[in-house]
């Protein structure tokens, strides 16, 4: 079923003080979709959101809402509402008046206002907080007020700019679930900005991975995780082992000194590629002739699993396993053809990646000490 396009961005570029922030963004947001813009800070995700909200105008390109061009429509005339980073509540108004703000502007009758505010506070579990001053609320409560305030005028699209950034981990998890439930209940399109990959994977229907003002990949969370399109996505979403390789022919790739069967095809013969293997896809077994053998350099307990660094064929491999091998011991590593992800090596790979993960270098640096 083809869903209705609600917001469309076409060839959007934007520069601040001559510094390009967006370099040609094309994006379609559908009705009732939970879309997340994911990327490191400075990747242009917030600017994209602000362009949709009307707080920035694109240098080139068009913003379409329901098929109509809205480049020059000011924010107060868009049926889009925003939950701002750090909430931006009105400090001079109490919870009730903050939530009622949009209705007051429209001179809504008092009875309807109180009814709608009550509904909204019920929706975000803040009943009984009407008369409280917003500055006396906790981060999570302020967050809820911000959501109620933005939802009261029944927007078609709700924009959320890192709304959970200031909350602690436990509260963040709770709010993730609540937001997702809220989106499903209200049927409003959410466009959500975050740098937290886990948050993006947990909540979204569609994830848009951005870096350097360019969209790197658009897909479902499963696609993004399992089939990263390039090394940036692979590194940014979860941890990865990324190794240089050569694609000999369809279904056969050479890396780490061996030829491996894989499930990828349609590469040029002998094309240099990057091979991505997720740490949890590698199994540690007894070292034999058929396995990649290496020395265990480090074992770190991570709660659910151990993070193990194994040095093999002069590369540090990251492995997640529930069993901890002995540090200094020899182990064998094995994986199935489905676990091998092949991606084209692009010129972008040479650029320093903004990803804070970069597990290989980190592990290498530690091993070198």
């Amino acid at each position: 079923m083809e869903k209705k396009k609600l917001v469309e961005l076409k060839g959007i570029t934007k520069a601040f003080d001559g510094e390009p922030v967006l370099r040609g963004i094309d994006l379609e947001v559908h009705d009732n979709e939970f879309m997340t813009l994911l990327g490191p800070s400075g990747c242009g995700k917030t600017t994209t959101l602000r362009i949709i909200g009307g707080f920035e105008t694109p240098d080139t390109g068009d913003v379409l809402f329901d098929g109509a061009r809205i480049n020059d429509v000011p924010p107060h005339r868009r049926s889009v509402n925003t939950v701002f980073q750090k909430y931006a509540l009105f400090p001079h108004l109490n919870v009730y008046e903050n939530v009622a703000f949009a209705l007051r502007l429209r001179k809504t009758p008092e009875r309807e206002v109180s009814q709608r505010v009550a509904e909204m506070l019920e929706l975000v579990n803040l009943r009984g907080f009407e008369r409280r001053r917003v500055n006396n609320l906790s981060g999570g409560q302020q967050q809820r007020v911000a959501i109620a305030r933005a939802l009261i005028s029944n927007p078609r699209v709700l924009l959320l700019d890192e709304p959970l950034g200031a909350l602690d981990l436990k509260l963040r998890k709770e709010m993730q679930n609540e937001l997702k439930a809220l989106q499903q209940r209200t049927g409003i399109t959410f466009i959500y900005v975050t740098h937290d990959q886990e948050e993006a994977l947990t909540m979204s229907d569609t994830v848009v991975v951005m870096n350097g003002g360019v969209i790197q990949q658009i897909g479902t969370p499963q696609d993004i995780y399992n089939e990263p399109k390039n090394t940036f996505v692979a590194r940014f979403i979860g941890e990865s082992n990324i190794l240089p390789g050569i694609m000999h022919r369809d279904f056969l790739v050479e890396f780490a000194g061996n030829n491996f069967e894989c499930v990828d095809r349609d590469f040029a013969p002998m094309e240099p590629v990057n091979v991505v293997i997720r740490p949890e896809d590698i199994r540690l077994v007894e070292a034999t002739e058929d396995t990649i053998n290496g020395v265990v350099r480090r074992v770190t307990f991570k709660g659910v699993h151990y993070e193990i660094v194994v040095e093999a064929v002069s590369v540090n491999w990251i492995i997640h396993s529930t069993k901890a091998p002995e540090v200094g011991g020899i182990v064998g590593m094995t994986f199935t053809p489905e676990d091998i992800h092949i991606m084209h090596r692009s010129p972008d790979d040479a650029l320093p990646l903004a990803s804070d993960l970069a597990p290989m270098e980190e592990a290498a640096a530690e091993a070198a000490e």
Partner: protein
Amino acid sequence: MLWMAVFIIVPLILIAVFAFTTTVKTDADGNILDAEALDALYEEYEEEYGEDAEPEIYERTIFTLANIFEVSRYMSTLLHSIWLALIATVICLILGYPVAYLISRLHFDRQKIMLMLVMLPMWMNFLLRTYAWMTLLERSGLINRVLGLIGLGPFQMINTPGAVVLGMVYNYLPFMITPLYSVMTKIDGRTIEAAQDLGAGSLRVMTRVVIPLSVPGVVSGITMVFVPAVSTFIISRMLGGGTNMLIGDLIDLQFLGNAYNPNLGAAMSLVLMVFILLCMSITNSIDDDDMEAALL
């Protein structure tokens, strides 16, 4: 605490002491002598001891409310001062508010420059600045001459209440802009965007968010302009001529002028202070809603 005691409490106590006391003359027995009694005493001595005899007369400081009552004779001057200062304060607010807002929304580097321009006249001596206005406003001054070229005037500008108000506005406008600006820069840009986002156009962003949030700046701006304006004596003397005496001029006369009477001067200062406190408490009690209503 010591700081406060030395620079605030002690002078206040001194003023109060002066205001509620007066120096009187007494005879050797300690009886207070009014002018009549004094004359009688001198006459008595003259008759009894001859021309050159001097009666024994002592001076004593006594508690009195007379000074305070005497201030009421100058009530019209006091009210006139308050009225002119009030007009000047309102004009400063009307002029200063948009300027402060615009500056606060500029790029940070520009804000510094603009603020410096606002403060620039303050670098010049207060007397000199006011004197400059004298030469501008004079009957044969620059403004009248320019107006004369196009066949207008000359107008009587100097020595009018208007000139005094102009002097107050000119001298104290930076005191209005600075506190307003410092409160306004603290208004988060996202709060304004949130209001736009929720459907407020520019006007309603002002009335519903910016103005209520800048009330503390308005209150301190009003204080910073009103208080010095109501007690000024230089501006009124230079631009108001003899006809526009303010309470500040009267106080000045009691201490440094020919009407030398520090007790009355202190009493005037005290009454003025009470009036200022009264005005300020009215200003401070203005809450957000009244402010909004007043400006709509």
